[in-house]
C-alpha cells in the first residue's frame, strides 16, 4: 500500500504514522503539509489511499477532496481530524470521504475504519 498522510502539523503526521504501524499497517507513506499538496501529490503520486486532516492552510482537506473528485480522481479518501461533529461527518460523506477518524485516536479506531475499506 502506498498511502498519503496529510496534516499541517509534522507532529501529528508522525503520530498518525506511528499509530498506523501500531495498528499493523506497514505501509509506504508519503506526506503532505496542506490541502494544495494533497491535491498535487494525489495526482502526481497516485497513492492507494489518502488520510487527511481537515483544517489546513492553503486549501482545507475537504476542498482538496472536492477538487480531486471534480478532476475525476477517485482515490479512497478518509479524514483524520480534531473536529468530529455530525455536521462535518455529513459534509465529508457528501464529498465522497469513506470515513472520518476524530483526534485523539487509537490504533483500534484506525482498524475499525480501515479494515472494511481494505477488504
Amino acid at each position: 500500500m502506498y498511502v498519503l498522510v496529510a496534516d499541517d502539523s509534522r507532529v501529528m503526521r508522525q503520530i498518525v504514522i506511528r499509530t498506523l504501524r501500531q495498528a499493523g499497517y506497514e505501509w509506504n507513506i508519503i506526506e503532505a503539509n496542506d490541502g494544495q499538496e494533497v491535491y498535487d501529490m494525489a495526482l502526481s503520486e497516485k497513492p492507494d489511499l489518502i488520510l487527511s486532516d481537515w483544517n489546513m492552510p492553503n486549501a482545507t482537506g475537504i476542498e482538496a477532496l472536492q477538487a480531486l473528485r471534480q478532476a475525476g480522481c477517485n482515490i479512497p479518501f478518509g479524514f483524520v481530524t480534531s473536529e468530529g461533529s455530525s455536521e462535518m461527518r455529513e459534509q465529508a460523506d457528501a464529498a465522497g470521504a469513506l470515513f472520518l477518524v476524530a483526534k485523539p485516536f487509537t490504533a483500534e479506531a484506525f482498524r475499525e475504519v480501515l479494515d472494511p475499506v481494505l477488504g
Partner: protein
Amino acid sequence: MRSGLVGVDRTQMLAITQDVFAAMVDGGEVLVSARFGAVPEVVDPVAAWVDMSVPSLGFGARAVVRTDRPTADVLTRALLMMGDDEHVGLDDFIDAFGELANVVGGNVKSLLSVPAVLSLPTVSGQAPVMEDNQFIQDIALDWRGHVFVIELWMLVLEPVA
C-alpha cells in the same frame, strides 16, 4: 445569554484533556488529573489557542492552553518520541504545543450547541489579550508533575449577515 451556547463544563474539559494525552502521549494511560490548590507562578509562560467562530451569530469561543516552556518542551519530546535531554527547537515546540491546543479545541467545538469554524492554532509567549471577551471557565491540570491550565472564553465578534 450567548454564553449558554458555549455549554462546556469543567468535567468535559478534563475528560477531553485526559483523552488527548492518553491517546497522543501516554500510550493509553490516563496521567492527567484535576489539580487542587493554587497554580504555581510561571517563570517562562507559553500559551496556545484556537478559536471557534460562529460569524452569523456574532460570537465565538476560544480554547487556551497555558503552561511554561519547560513543560511544553517535555510535551514536545513525548509527542516526537525524543530523548529526555534532546534539545527542542522552536519549530517543533510551536508545532507540538499548537497541535495540543488544536485537538483540545476541536473536541470542545464538537460540544458547542451550534456549528462553528475552527481556526488554525496560535502559539505565543504571552496569554492572548481577552479584555472585551467573556471568561467562561478554566481548569488546572497535573500531568506527570507538570501543570497545564485550560481556559474557555466566549468571543464577541462582528455579526455577519
